């Protein structure tokens, strides 16, 4: 079986500055693959490139058997790749319900969409209670739930989450991580970028450590969780 997502020697640059310097990894169906690494390592750049928001300067990306290089950003989601961006980026002046509807922008099955909206409200009851409220009025954690719910509305084959726990209270962080574990249990394939390495690695089937544009260490989540260097650098131990 071939991987759902195959990234080979991907290079991305901002002008002359190369932010991703030739990375390769795969995501298989049903897995959680985690990218960890310090700020500025190139994780967000990688996800934005997979979504077509940035154009690579080298390498190939194959998703579900199709090359992504020439696909414009607005056509990516229809292939089954959904992206919950860093910083959440909900539409602040639209309501929660409208934000969720936008996640299903290209779907035409009205009933299925309604069902999935209800499912998002079940997953995150607070969103259901505030469905008519402008999304900008939500707290950071609630906005994160909305961003995840919105990404799921396209029924993606692969869900990319960029730092879903960034800036959240420990309690909210736990809630988000528990949701990711639930999604994994229901078979959702996830590419997860996280600063909160402890929680992320314990969920991950495979993980990669990025440093200044390169993958410097790869292994299963458990392997990295118990790796000396990783513990020192990312889990705050010395």
């Amino acid at each position, binding site marked *: 079986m071939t991987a759902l997502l195959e990234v080979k020697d991907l290079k991305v640059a901002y002008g002359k500055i190369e932010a991703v310097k030739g990375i390769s990894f795969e995501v298989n169906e049903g897995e959680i693959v985690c990218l960890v690494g310090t700020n500025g390592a190139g994780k967000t750049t990688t996800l934005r490139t997979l979504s077509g928001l940035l154009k690579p300067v080298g390498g190939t990306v194959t998703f579900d058997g199709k090359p992504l290089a020439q696909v414009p950003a*607005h056509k990516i989601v229809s292939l089954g790749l959904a992206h919950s*961006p860093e910083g959440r980026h909900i539409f602040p002046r*639209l309501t929660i319900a409208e934000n969720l509807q936008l996640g299903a922008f290209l779907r035409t099955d009205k009933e299925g969409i309604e069902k999935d909206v209800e499912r998002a409200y079940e997953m995150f009851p607070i969103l259901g209670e505030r469905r008519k409220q402008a999304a900008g009025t939500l707290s950071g954690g609630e906005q994160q739930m909305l961003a995840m719910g919105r990404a799921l509305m396209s029924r993606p084959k692969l869900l990319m989450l960029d730092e879903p726990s960034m800036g959240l209270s420990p309690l909210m962080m736990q809630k988000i991580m528990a949701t990711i574990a639930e999604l994994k249990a229901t078979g959702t394939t996830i590419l997860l970028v996280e600063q909160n390495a402890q929680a992320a690695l314990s969920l991950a089937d495979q993980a990669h450590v990025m440093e200044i544009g390169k993958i410097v260490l790869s292994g299963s989540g458990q392997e990295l969780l118990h790796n000396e260097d990783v513990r020192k650098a990312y889990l705050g131990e010395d």
Partner: protein
Amino acid sequence: MHELPQQLANGLALGALYGLIAIGYTMVYGIVQLINFAHGEIFMIGGFGALTAYTALPTGTSLLIAIPVMIVGGALASVAVATAAERFAYRPLRSAPRLAPLITAIGLSIALQQLVWQFYPDAKKAVSFPEFKGEAFKITDSLSIQRADLFVLILAPLCMLALGIFVQKSRSGRAMQATAQDPDTAKLMGINTDRIIVMAFAIGAAFAAVAAVAYGLDKGQINFEMGFILGLKAFTAAVLGGIGNIYGAMVGGVVLGLAEALSIAYIEDIPGMSQLGGGAWSNVWAFVLLIVVLLVRPQGLLGERVADRA
């Protein structure tokens, strides 16, 4: 002494005209943060498109039949020019520093004026436009509304209503709101933001064409330079109402129109200001109003809170 109801009616009609043009500035700004300074010329092109359509009609066609044809002709011309400008002048500059599209807009504005001046038959001076003649509607002894004013007073609210429903209720309208609030994330939803931007230019151009027909019917003539001052006024209206906000554009237009009409009528009655009244000073008062409003409310009357636009 001027009658107040009459001045208010005049101001309202003028304001509705400004508002229709202002929609074009505000929609484009709301979505791509570009001040399309060539929009005044898009309005002017709408006028010439309408006139061309009128000329193609058999002589003696009643105005009631001719007006819809003129609106369609004007809109075809203005939308074609506006979308071409977007595609070939502005889109290639979307990631360039802000000054580049601004300078392009000014260049485009001059180029469009010169093209009409050079190539439209007899357009080197004002050309006559079918005038909406006939009795003004007399409402009371002191209030009567010209037919051309009635035209804009009916059409402007209808256009606003249609636009409001489109933006709030339709799928494309929702996509337009999303694109205005966060273009990259809109793409992640599967929205073709390039198409949405073209749509914003097109809607603004069509509204400008309606305004141009109203203007022509009122004045009985149009000219290649008419987009300059009206464009500037409409831009002022858009900023006054809160640029980026479609309802703000109409509110800004109406406030500006009323302020001008009232300043023409009443400023000279204020003791010591007799020199500063009348039509000659109305533009000055319009800009004074703009400055005062922006000092108190920098985001404009209905402006979006800047903080949301992260």
